């Protein structure tokens, strides 16, 4: 009799757990962006000649982009996208940590700190801090070409061919999203950014378990 009870209870609990797991994976009540890979470690300099390292991004959200100051028309879609993201963020309540833009030059030979300082920024950000970084060619090759896997190649005329890419890195230095192409769907990006914000906000207690389960069951946005 007791054995029968035990089996019934065990079956009921097991059944509930299976139903719970199925519901979680199908209904996906929690969505996350995957922790894809580690963002690169680096030490570079900004327009003021000040050293900026990957550690400066700890606890912040960073959208990395790749360009060069003499890029002109090729970079217009990038600048328009960044401006749209900045405007989108400015139009809503500020969230913590704030997003920052970091643009890594693809032309370190010409984009010295002085050149970066004299570069007329295509727009003045309202809510986002935007930093251009330069440094030794080898370092940038390791960072942009190696770790961020950006395809780029200097042309004979001094311009640089490159495949535009946006990379969202979280406060732990982990790549959470990669968007290829010059134009980024701003609304979609802001929605996905919100997923990271929600995860940061819920990173305590039982909610954290739900978020880890979402990672485990690959509950990613379509």
């Amino acid at each position, binding site marked *: 009799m007791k054995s029968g009870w035990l089996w019934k209870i065990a079956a009921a609990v097991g059944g509930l757990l299976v139903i719970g797991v199925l519901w979680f994976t199908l209904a996906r009540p929690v969505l996350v962006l995957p922790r894809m890979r580690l963002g690169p470690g680096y030490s570079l300099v900004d327009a003021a000649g000040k050293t900026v390292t990957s550690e400066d991004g700890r606890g912040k959200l960073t959208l990395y982009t790749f360009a060069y100051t003499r890029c002109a028309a090729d970079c217009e879609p990038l600048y328009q996208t960044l401006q749209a993201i900045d405007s989108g963020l400015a139009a809503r309540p500020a969230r913590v940590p704030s997003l920052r833009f970091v643009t890594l030059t693809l032309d370190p030979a010409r984009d010295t700190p002085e050149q970066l300082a004299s570069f007329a920024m295509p727009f003045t950000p309202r809510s986002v801090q935007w930093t251009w970084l330069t440094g030794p060619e080898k370092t940038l090759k*390791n960072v942009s070409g190696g770790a961020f896997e950006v395809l780029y190649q200097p042309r004979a005329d001094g311009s640089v061919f490159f495949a535009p890419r946006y990379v969202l890195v979280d406060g732990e230095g982990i790549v959470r999203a990669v968007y290829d192409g010059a134009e980024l769907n701003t609304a979609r990006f802001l929605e996905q950014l919100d997923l990271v914000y929600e995860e940061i906000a819920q990173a305590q207690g039982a909610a954290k378990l739900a978020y880890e389960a979402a990672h485990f069951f690959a509950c990613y946005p379509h």
Partner: protein
Amino acid sequence: MKNILLSRWTLPVAGLVIGLVAVVVLWNAVRPHTFAGTVMQSLQPAYDFTLTGPDDLPVKLSDQHGKAVLLFFGYTSCPDICPTTLYEMRDMLDALGNKAGAVRVLFVSVDPEKDTPQRLKAFLANIDPQGRLTGLTGDLDTLNEIAAQYGIFFQKRPYNDSGGYLIDHTATVLLVDPDGYLRVVYPYGTPGADIAADVRYILSH
């Protein structure tokens, strides 16, 4: 009267206790392991590299397939963070007991100027006399390339005019699973016993 009470309550109480035990046992059996670090969903194998190990012999990451690998970047003159982390690595291996043979701890030097394979071997033998910690070094370009791939920043910081320097560096510990995928990133200060629990889980799954 007493017997009637006993007979009335015995079965429900026993059922409740058995039910609670069943819930606990089942939950322990099916609940996901809680990792001490940040779990990655790496789509590609960890960046492969070859560096110089003990006795000047090459050590290649992908040759460690089948073992859990813990990667830590530092240097032998490091005053605090590196020895502390390496002692945690030793504690982790101790906690793993006979499973420690399925684990490799690789300490990658970010100070190729000073850290020869011999120096690394002597330094690590002081921390773990059983010789379970492996020191690796290489030329600066190679180390820069590898460090960038693993999210490790390092930079020399002179502290006097006579050539003395420290090296600022990222102090995370990285766990590469036996299939060669980066699985967990540990912040500085994660106890070795907690990492051992994760490694034990990864080795058994």
